């Protein structure tokens, strides 16, 4: 059998961006550079490795999907250049909330019938981390989140996943289909090769109008505004261990 992998990705401001706020409390996006959400990039890499390891039993197909406007094209190309086979974009410039995005993805899952949905544990911009579990619940699929290791068993029938949890590591076994989210230590994403970048431009990219997703409900979670952190008083440099001890004693911490 062939294994079909679906990887939802999100376009997020580059991880090293200095994000500024416009006068009206919105984000100042004027000079921002974007990338594939770093946790989603880990998911693309893991899906590629799973696909490569599935070669002996029929191979696989890796489809990346994103929900967003034309601006996401660069990030789709980046995932295709890494080695994804094709892409799907649910076209919208509306800011959707987690439940609406999960609803769109559930429609894509019904259309594509993947064996596994792999995505990042959260997005670097809003850091909600809700979409994967919401999607799993909508599909009534099992999930394994914050994975640091994924092993596909029985030719793609099951997955054994090690999850990073507060107390340490939990190991769970899922019968596919399922949703798995990538954590930091899952892998080291590859760089796209030059031939990979050339090939990416010729790979299929479907655009699905948001209306085709049907009723995704109204947005009920929205960001009203952004603001800077309250300023923290500047700290002091101490010159010696004795001075440090003195300062800590002043604060009754020693």
């Amino acid at each position, binding site marked *: 059998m062939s294994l079909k992998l679906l990887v939802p990705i999100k376009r997020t401001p580059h991880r090293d961006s200095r994000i500024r706020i416009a006068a009206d409390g919105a984000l100042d996006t004027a000079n921002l550079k974007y990338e594939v959400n770093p946790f989603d990039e880990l998911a693309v890499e893991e899906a590629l490795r799973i696909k490569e390891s599935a070669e002996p039993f029929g191979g696989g197909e890796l489809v990346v999907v994103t929900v967003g406007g034309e601006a996401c094209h660069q990030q789709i190309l980046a995932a295709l250049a890494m080695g994804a086979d094709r892409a799907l974009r649910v076209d919208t410039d509306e800011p959707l909330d987690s439940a609406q995005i999960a609803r769109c993805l559930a429609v894509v899952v019904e259309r594509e019938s993947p064996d596994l949905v792999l995505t990042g544990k959260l997005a670097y911009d809003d850091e909600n981390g809700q979409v994967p579990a919401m999607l799993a619940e909508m599909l009534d699929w099992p999930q394994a989140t914050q994975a640091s290791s994924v092993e596909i068993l029985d030719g793609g029938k099951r997955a054994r996943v090690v999850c990073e949890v507060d107390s340490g590591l939990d190991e769970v076994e899922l019968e596919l289909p399922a949703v798995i989210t990538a954590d930091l230590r899952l892998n080291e994403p590859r760089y796209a090769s030059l031939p990979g970048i050339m090939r990416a431009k010729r790979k299929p990219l479907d655009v699905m109008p948001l209306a085709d997703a049907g009723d995704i409900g109204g947005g*009920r979670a929205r960001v009203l505004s952004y603001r800077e952190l309250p300023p923290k008083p500047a700290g002091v440099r101490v010159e010696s261990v004795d001075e440090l001890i003195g300062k800590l004693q002043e604060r009754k*911490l020693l």
Partner: protein
Amino acid sequence: MAEHSDILIVIGPASSPVKKGDLAALGLGKAASEKTGGAFDALVLGPHAAEAAAEVAPHGARTVFTLDHPDLATYTAEAYARAAHAFLDGRTYRLIAAATSSSTREYLPRLAVRLDAPMASDVLALDDIALDDVAAGDGTATFTRAVFVGNLLSTVELSGALAIATCRASEFDPPETGAASPVEAVALSDASLAHPRKKFVSTSQAKTERPELTEAEVVVTAGRGTKGPDKGIPLAEELADLLGAALGSTRAVVDAGWLPNEFQVGQTGKIIAPKLYIAIGVSGAIQHLAGMRNSKTIVAINKDPEAPIFEVADFGLVADLFEAVPELIAKVRELRREA
């Protein structure tokens, strides 16, 4: 019976002793109920629910509900979401919230879908909560959250009759204790809560005598500058033991295999705000700062004067940790002897 103005704080899987963060979440419950003019209940889930409920009871909830079921014996997101959902059948709340943890992060979104309610993750504060028209289910709840790796704050509005949230425990305080609330055990008629296609296999945790990161008042964190388990990590451990502190680590230290993942402080890992945070050989990547910048007093010892950790440190010592930390340990020990 619960009303449209009532709040539910979910604790699960509950531990005994109860986690400090779970008690802190009750503080959100109390603050929210004061705004809505309602009451707050607690729902304590899992095999330790009864013992945990006894510790929750003095913190001012109207009722502390306990719920256990064979399928909650080992934690899975699917079973915990179903258990909370089953409990909520026939009960109405305005806000359902829980302390952010690796568990609630993954089962509250499932619960939100089951209840068809919007959710805010890891909120730092409840700014406002109102229900304008109960019959129309028309209301808003606004929260403050940290976004962009803790570099900005956002105000998020959830609309509808019910809001769901996880809250960052370090930003809330447990309500003052008083007379114990009634504890009521809830029995579920559902034969099965587990997802038929998920199986818990095993759990592993490093053995340690030290307090857990999320419970400790003092944290000593070892960074890459400690150079490993045969070099500076034992110094960090010695200082932690001397101060009764938890041991923390940066991503680099975990990636190198010097300390296990549950010690990591940061965007990935624990987000904490202890009374005293001592960073040893920590450079201060933004992902790490996101996990500790709200600590009450931050000490940084690093030989690189340009290290970003100094930007958030209350007291910075530019020094070779292999000289400064042994000196600090010796002098603190001396002070303790004098005292």
